[in-house]
């Protein structure tokens, strides 16, 4: 099936869950990611049950900190690690989103 991930259309096997997708996209810190499916934000607990369907649009939205150090609290800064898309994929996504 074809689904759109961060604006880029990709071929994925049928029956994939959101959790499977996070793994297949090599998102290293899924606890740092919000997943939006067709404009609706999913809760983390839904990742394992929610199956994806042809034509779904998925956005991984990464928690990012990174302003002033230690302004309040000591949780540290926001870091989400993942495999970066290839340049061409990113630029294709630009065209798709504007």
């Amino acid at each position: 099936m074809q689904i759109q991930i961060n604006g880029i259309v990709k071929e994925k096997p049928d029956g994939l869950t959101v959790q499977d997708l996070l793994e297949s996209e090599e998102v290293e810190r899924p606890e740092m990611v919000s997943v939006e499916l067709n404009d609706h934000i999913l809760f983390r607990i839904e990742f394992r049950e929610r199956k994806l369907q042809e034509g779904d649009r998925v956005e991984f939205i990464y928690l990012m900190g990174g302003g002033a150090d230690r302004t309040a609290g000591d949780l540290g800064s926001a870091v989400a690690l993942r495999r970066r898309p290839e340049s061409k994929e990113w630029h294709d996504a630009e065209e798709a989103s504007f």
Partner: protein
Amino acid sequence: MTAPLVLSNEMIERYSRQILLPGIGGAGQKKLLRSRVLVVGVGGLGAPAALYLAAAGVGTLGLMDADEVDLSNLQRQVLHFTPDVGRPKVESAAEKLRELNPDVQVVTYPDRLRPDNAAGILEGYDFVLDGTDSFASKFLIADACHFGGKPYCHAGILRFEGQALTVFPGETACYRCVFHEPPPVGAVPTCSEAGVLGAVAGLLGVIQAAEALKALIGAGDLLTNRLLVCDVLRMGFRTVRVRRNPRCPLCGPEPTITHLDTAEAGRPNGAACAVGAAKRDVHGLA
């Protein structure tokens, strides 16, 4: 009521290039001079943001930061110079901003934003910029702005990437609509491990300043209900549509976060900035 503000000849000259802009004019400039913006965190985001807000003539600029300038800050926190290392950031920043524009009243808070001081400080401002680093702070700002009814602009930066979202509490998608809650403590490596390009911090800080200025004068389309995502390495920008989440723990119809938990203020990680007490009647208190 405040006395009517008259633009001096000097002001008209200083702000002439933006007074010329459609949607600003003399009336918009007066609005800016009467406006109050709080910048929480005078670092990679807050420093460039504060520079542009001061230059534009935002009448009162609150600067909040408990830290001192460190040598490793200078790569991106452009309000602080080499001789400032060791000085309180708010002091270093206020000095530069007053020199840049004496029209601006700079108020400094050499403190951290905490659940027990947030409401009182936010009260005096029209718009809040989140220039903080930690999730504890970012969620606290979102919560405090919600309860205080203050619009704010969130930004995050990492390596070569950044994101920004403007929120009008109760009207547009909030930070918790998108991110729910801070990640588990301990799951989060520090900024020094990940790094960030100074220009990315500047870019996002200036986007926040532009959002504040537009919000204050009521011009254009804000980054509401859409998250700006940019990748400077590829130099691409996208906006991701976000909408108010009916299950948002803060601004949804059945909120589980109903007030700032001032009792938790003394806790070192500050993560428990808001409590789950599921009381619907308290929602929308502000």
